[in-house]
């Protein structure tokens, strides 16, 4: 587990599981730099998504990470930082 990197594909899989897909925006387009708010994922959907990531990857995310202004790129970077920190520890 400690060697793995968190990718956009991982995020899409977890988003789908935690919050479902929005037919209007979809997850197939390039979503990396669009905020979750604009992608249609409200705070509770983000909370659930964050919870799924924490459970699956054995890390913890700060509550203030999961804001509406967050983009998938930000979240992926944060998760990978936490994974790297966990490897060092």
């Amino acid at each position, binding site marked *: 587990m400690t060697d793995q990197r968190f990718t956009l594909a991982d995020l899409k899989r977890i988003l789908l*599981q935690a*919050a*479902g897909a*929005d037919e209007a925006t979809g997850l197939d387009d390039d979503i990396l730099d669009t905020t979750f708010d604009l992608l249609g994922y409200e705070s*509770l*959907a983000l909370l*659930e998504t964050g919870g799924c990531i924490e*459970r699956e990857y054995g890390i913890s995310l700060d509550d203030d990470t999961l804001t509406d202004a967050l983009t998938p790129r930000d979240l992926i970077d944060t998760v990978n930082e936490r994974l790297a920190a966990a490897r060092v520890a």
Partner: protein
Amino acid sequence: MTPVVVTGMGVAAPNGLGAADYWAATLGGKSGIGRITRFDPSGYPTQLAGEIPGFEAAEHLPGRLLPQTDRVTRLSLAAADWALADAGVDPESFDPLDMGVVTASHAGGFEFGQGELQKLWAKGSQFVSAYQSFAWFYAVNSGQISIRHGMKGPSGVVVSDQAGGLDALAQARRLVRKGTPLIVCGAVDASVCPWGWVAQLAGGRMSGSDEPTRAYLPFDRDARGYVPGEGGAILIMESASAARARGAKVYGEISGYGATFDPPPGSGRGSTLRTAVRIALDDANAAPGDVDAVFADGAGVPELDRAEAEAISEVFGSGGVPVTVPKAMTGRLYSGAAPLDVACALLAMQAGTIPPTVHIDPCPEYDLDLVLHQARPATVRTVLVLARGHGGFNSAMVVRAGR
């Protein structure tokens, strides 16, 4: 006072999904009661339910709603969609503050809650879904309907067991009279899951019979308890003038309502159901002789059946009005039962026929003119619908045909 009318209906019943299927099944005496399929009931003392077959939520709802909704909410959202379409209402053409939502709920989203409790117990609190914060909650159906359609007017939920279905319609009527042009109202309940099942068993009034045609027998000499079901109906209620202004078809008017609460058991004082009926008739400015049919609560429990039969006979006289219990074909749907009865009554008015109470061999002590075995052709202009909730709730509603 402003007449308040019903302009649309969405039905989800064990014997029919959608108003047309439900009405055809009900007229034909087709029952939706059978052995539970949603979980293995073999370890439980009662094993029959009225389950809705063939409802695939993903066919009716956007994917974003599925992870956050219980079955009861999915059914409610679908029924609300159908009711709005039936009424010819496009919510986007309304001011959001001109639309509200009032539903009743008996149990909330039990199956969702069961899943989260299982995760809590087996894996720990961090595995409990964030959506559990609302997915189980009594008000969730009102909330999700209002969010889906952008309805920001007065909204709420009432919780009074089976009587709640009428109490929600009455609250919707109040809100329309206070000036909100359109209210989505009614109820759907659905808790056929192991946790929901043991909660219902705790009430002690479920039928232990495993014969689908002999388990739930309201007003029968062999009444032995009730069979629960899932489903209900969502209605669109509008002021008559607003409905007229937009050229809507009108099923009928909610013209009278009364509610009472029974004295405690052992007090020596009897049921106050009769008082609820009188209040509803007075509110509708109707005499007993104006009523063409009574859609009874039909508890299927001998002492409750007797109290209801006596109340009906006292108001209408011996055999003085046709009485029917179409819910003998669905099981008792808790909050969903009475809105479904109101929808059924409105369809009966349209069709000029009173649907039957199936499988019943009436108890000879009751002076009731029960519509048995098959539908009875009749002019149906005014109907009394009754609903009683566990713990003493009585509600009565008078519905009149559209003019």
